[in-house]
């Protein structure tokens, strides 16, 4: 295992529209948000509509394996892993994996963009959940097909342990 710490460098001004839009979303004042911007506080329906424009999202069947705990001990750190059983060839590959938490204020949690060189459409991250909610993995293939797997995560709140 190797690692490398790096001291900060000043930004080169290339955060791009995603960075700017995300910062906008953080202040809760949507300004000229592009369809693809992340970090917006919005309802689930508004977010899905904005990002996917009403395109049909099919149930993935067994093709998308979404791994989340049944019960999360807290909403601060909830591990999510997605494994997609679909090709990753230059002409046909999984382009994006979206993680969505229906009841979060920022429901579109993260978007992973993949190149065919990734070899497999696979991702994992720790996410925040505000409350018990469905968590979805929405997968977009290079031809535009959208597939979804969904699981409920119960979030434990409170208790004498904190």
């Amino acid at each position, binding site marked *: *295992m190797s*690692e490398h710490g790096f001291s900060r460098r000043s930004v080169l001004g290339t955060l791009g529209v995603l960075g700017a839009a995300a910062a906008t979303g953080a202040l809760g004042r949507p300004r000229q948000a592009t369809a693809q911007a992340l970090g917006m506080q919005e309802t689930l329906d508004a977010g899905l509509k904005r990002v996917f424009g009403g395109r049909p999202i099919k149930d993935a069947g067994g093709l998308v394996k979404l791994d989340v*705990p*049944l*019960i999360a*001990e*807290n909403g*601060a*750190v909830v*591990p999510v892993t997605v494994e997609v059983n679909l090709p990753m060839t230059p002409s046909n590959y999984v382009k994006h994996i979206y993680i969505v938490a229906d009841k979060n204020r920022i429901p579109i949690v993260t978007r992973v963009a993949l190149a065919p060189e990734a070899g497999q459409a696979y991702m994992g991250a720790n996410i925040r959940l505000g409350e*018990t909610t469905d968590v979805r993995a929405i997968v977009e293939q290079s031809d535009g097909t959208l597939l979804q797997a969904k699981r409920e995560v*119960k979030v*434990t*709140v*409170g*208790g*004498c*342990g*904190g």
Partner: protein
Amino acid sequence: MRRAATRLRWLPALLLAAGCATTGSVGPDTSAATRTVPEARGDIRTLPDGTREALRYAGWPKTDYGRFRTYAYDDTRGEIAVQRGTVPAGATGDPKKGRALFTSRAKGPCTGCHLIPGDDVWPAGNVGPDLSTIADRRLTNEYLYQQIYDARVIFPQTAMPPWGASGAFTPQEIVDLVAFLQTLKGPRPPEKDADRDPATRTKPVGFGDNLDPTNNPALLLAEGAEQQWKVRGPSGKACADCHAGGVDVAMKGVAARYPKIVPRYSRVMSIEDFLSAHGPETTGTPLPMESDANLNLTMLVKMASNGMPVAIDTESVEARAALARGRAGFYRRVGERNHACAGCHTPEKGASKFLGGRFLGDVTSGLTRHFPTWRTSQNQVWDMRKRMQWCMTPLGMNMLPADAVEYAELELYLTSFDIGKPMNVPGIRH
């Protein structure tokens, strides 16, 4: 504060050696009695309007629970006096209000220990009996009232808090609760979700490999202490100057023997306690309890014993006496809730059951060898003392300073159950 007496034995030598003179700026002067960061001292201050508030960690409740007894050895008050309650004459109970009180996080919630029907009931615990069909038992209103007001009248060994005797619930609130309970008749609705019922709920699976630095942030923070080990303090010395060979080598096996009675200070000390005294004495660098420096250095020192069996002294005369005091603390009923550690953490009572959503640890299985631990819910490293101090707040009790000898001897007692088991620091937990 009346606890200074237990610390004065070692204090003068320590102050003399360290040459420090801190000032307590609020409330009684506890600065001389403890070597912790200010928010870990357990100070209580009086506001201009006369109310008293506790100075605790950021985000912790500020309530002063001074009315109720603590773990302090010189706190000679008894537990809340057992009291027979009387149902107020002519009072009628509102079941709707009762249900709201039953599930209110501002109160118990009662669902922390007792399951009742309802899709909105999440997460209920099973430390106490399932009350879903309690009305079928045809208990009188007076009986149920007493059970809530002060259950010790009926069951002297109960873990149930004396909600009326302590004043946590008013008599009218208890009347409303009783009215609600009397509506809980069977048959119970079919359980749609096995996880709703604590008896059939999936047990927590934990947070993965605690020694994987791509999983446990505490490991990255502990690395910062490697620098601390080599840095020369105001006295011109570094830890490394006396403890050669690197932390791993110099400290190998050391932490496996803690907590222990440290003769120089005539008291039981954990690694954290010891560093808070030893650091200023040797390098001149302050290492107050609950500071990042103390926590990170403690992790590093303990990691040097990872995999080695916990091997504390439980045989010497002094150790036995300290263990007995720690055990007495473990079984001591304290706070507004009148709970003892034993009420939740022994197999006979609450261990391996759910308290709300929390799965209760069993002291006999050994609960200490992963401390200090990363806490995902806090995104912080917590040592055992902070964990104990936190338990105090829901119990309704003022906390003692992090380095209180009472906590140290309680920790000694808890650690006795880890003997022979491998150290595994830092943990990663909720």
